[in-house]
């Protein structure tokens, strides 16, 4: 497949599944087609289930925000193939550094769905323990986490983990088209390249950085950014779960076997708003949105499954029931999140070891809340201020 990026230049893009759900056979893609062909019908049904449940999570969370139960939500609608396809290529020992919209990735990694909304509820700055699923918490400063991913990968190298396409350890970091303009993302690729760090840079080019189109970030197709740093780089149809899976698996294997970093641009579209606070009607046309609705990644995989006899009414009903259960779990779970005590939430874990300023402020505030604040805010025992001299 080729697409254009606002210019007349055709951009080579890996596609294994066309928008109608037909498998595509293009010269030079055999390696990727073999990877996709290795997926069983059950594997594909699993991807489909995860994509549908990711969209259900989106819809439920958006509703909860509209009801005032979440402070904010950033929907992933339209990016399910990019997220679920890449996450299915990961292994448990791999480590994920998401930005803040990777609901499909987190779902596949097995994170509790209510935990995934703690941040948006305003009851947590994170929401889960990164060490439990080898998945870092969200990073809100755009692109900053790509350096953490690179450093983590440098640590993997120093640990002397095996170079093996199954048992090796890879790191993947997700970021968007806007993030490619950040210095940190560019520095991360430099550090990864010169160290041969086992990290995959997974760009979801959803074409919009809030209101700014990709043309405000780049003059060239974004996968070429990776190339320029010396990283094997590939542009894939981000709404094609097979192409995303195959490309990611290849890049992860490169990392696991000591062949260094890679860059993948998944060309997709943010079908919804940037967040629940955004209004896309101010900066893009309904025609464009309609054009991308016709390229819906879930419809595409559904068409393939139907054509291959892997999707029937029973399976649809099963996923629907699972989605209903997820919705109920989210509604009950989110409403129950209250952030704990204000004192503990605010003062706990600022430092790992006691810090005099925090300790004194906490003690003073607790006493103030109890109606008995001491004269000293600094935990000085004798509050007589030294007495008159």
């Amino acid at each position: 497949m080729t697409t254009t990026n606002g210019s007349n230049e055709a951009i080579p893009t890996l596609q294994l599944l066309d928008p109608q759900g037909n498998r595509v056979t293009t010269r030079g893609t055999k390696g990727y087609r073999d990877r996709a062909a290795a997926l069983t019908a059950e594997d594909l049904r699993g991807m489909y289930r995860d994509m549908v449940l990711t969209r259900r999570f989106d819809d439920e969370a958006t509703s909860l925000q509209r009801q005032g139960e979440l402070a904010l939500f950033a929907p992933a609608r339209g990016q399910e193939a990019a997220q679920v396809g890449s996450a299915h290529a990961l292994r448990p020992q791999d480590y994920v550094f998401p930005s803040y919209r990777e609901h499909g990735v987190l779902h596949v990694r097995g994170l509790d769905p209510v935990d995934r909304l703690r941040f948006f509820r305003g009851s947590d700055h994170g929401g889960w323990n990164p060490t439990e699923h080898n998945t870092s918490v969200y990073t809100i400063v755009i692109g900053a986490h790509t350096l953490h991913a690179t450093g983590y990968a440098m640590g993997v190298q120093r640990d002397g983990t095996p170079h093996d396409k199954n048992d090796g350890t890879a790191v993947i970091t997700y970021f968007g088209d806007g993030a490619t303009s950040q210095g940190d993302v560019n520095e991360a690729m430099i550090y990864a390249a010169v160290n041969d760090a086992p990290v995959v840079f997974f760009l979801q080019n959803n074409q919009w950085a809030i209101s700014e189109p990709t043309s405000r970030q780049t003059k060239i197709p974004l996968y070429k950014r990776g190339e320029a740093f010396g990283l094997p780089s590939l542009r894939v149809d981000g709404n094609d779960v097979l192409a995303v899976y195959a490309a990611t698996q290849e890049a992860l294997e490169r990392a696991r076997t000591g062949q260094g970093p890679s860059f993948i641009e998944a060309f997709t579209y943010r079908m919804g708003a940037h967040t629940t606070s955004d209004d896309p009607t101010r900066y893009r046309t309904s025609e464009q949105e309609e054009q991308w609705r016709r390229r819906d990644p879930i419809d595409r995989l559904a068409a393939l499954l139907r054509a291959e006899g892997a999707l029937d009414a029973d399976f649809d009903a099963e996923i629907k029931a699972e989605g209903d259960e997820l919705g109920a779990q989210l509604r009950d779970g989110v409403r129950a999140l209250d952030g704990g005590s204000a004192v503990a939430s605010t003062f706990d874990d600022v430092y790992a070891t006691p810090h005099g300023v925090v300790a004194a402020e906490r003690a003073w505030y607790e006493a103030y809340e109890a109606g008995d604040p001491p004269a000293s805010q600094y935990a000085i025992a004798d509050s007589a201020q030294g007495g008159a001299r």
Partner: protein
Amino acid sequence: MTTMAERTHTTASASEPASSTRTLSFSKAINEGLRAAMRHDDKVMLMGEDIGPLGGVFRVTDGLQAEFGEQRVVDTPLAESGIVGTAIGLAMRGYRPVCEIQFDGFVFPAFNQITTQLSKIHNRTRGAVQMPVVIRIPYGGGIGGVEHHGESPEALFAHTAGLRVVSPSSPQDAYTMIQEAIASPDPVLFFEPKSRYWGKGPVDLEAPVGTDTLNTAQVIRQGTDVTLVAYGPSVTTAVKTAEALAEEGRSAEVLDLRAISPIDTAAVVASVRKTGRCVVIHEAPVFFGAGAEIAARVTEECFYALEAPVLRVGGFHTPYPVAKHEHEYLPSVDRVLDAVDRAFAH
């Protein structure tokens, strides 16, 4: 928390030299501290620009790459945000990176990683992920440097919760504090007074580690009439001022803060309640500087003991001046004496 009044003197010069005591320059003391930490824990690694074969522009890492190899002493790309950002990832994987920022003025490309990431990840993960990262920053003026080679940006970091901000003033403290900074599970901004790098002093290479130097101030010189509060390069200035005051018959106590986050408020208060006067000295601009915080705390806690307002001596609210004029800008013994005179005039 013990107060300074209860604490005994711990400076090497205060006790008989141990057989493990050597005379080392300040920079060599840090070098030996780094070496000791790296021998003690193979997760400790150094990252920075020109720290490998060159040994750093101030030679603080001299010989360490030869001893510990390129995987543990890493010459990084010339990108400070990358140094700190990758150190964060290494810490997540269980390493204890010590980053060298070549000069004070070059820390700002890393400012975002330090203040929005390094300082907050422990809190963001509810304590699940610790950030044992040390950022060494040669700082302060007096060496005739060009622009961005003489600045004192420590207050900018002290204003961010989650970071510890310390500055040693002697070779012994430099040796001990760098090891305690590396052992800390919290991120530590380690400000090294570059004007003191070449000054020598006794260092006990077997001095205990774990003495809480990152949290506690130290009385360098006992006195009764005025407290001179300083840290890093200004401690020497304070001691020289105290010597000059002694000739005038005035007794100055010199308190070396060692840390400005946290501030050992109890130690400052104990001293000022005794002396009744307080002058704070630092090279950083006094406007919104550490001295302002100390003045506020002293005023609240020592109000009835004070004979005079708390006074500050430090840099002006200007860009750090050109090398030709930096000695007029830096807090000198004369300017501290002037402040002490003003304190006694009340």
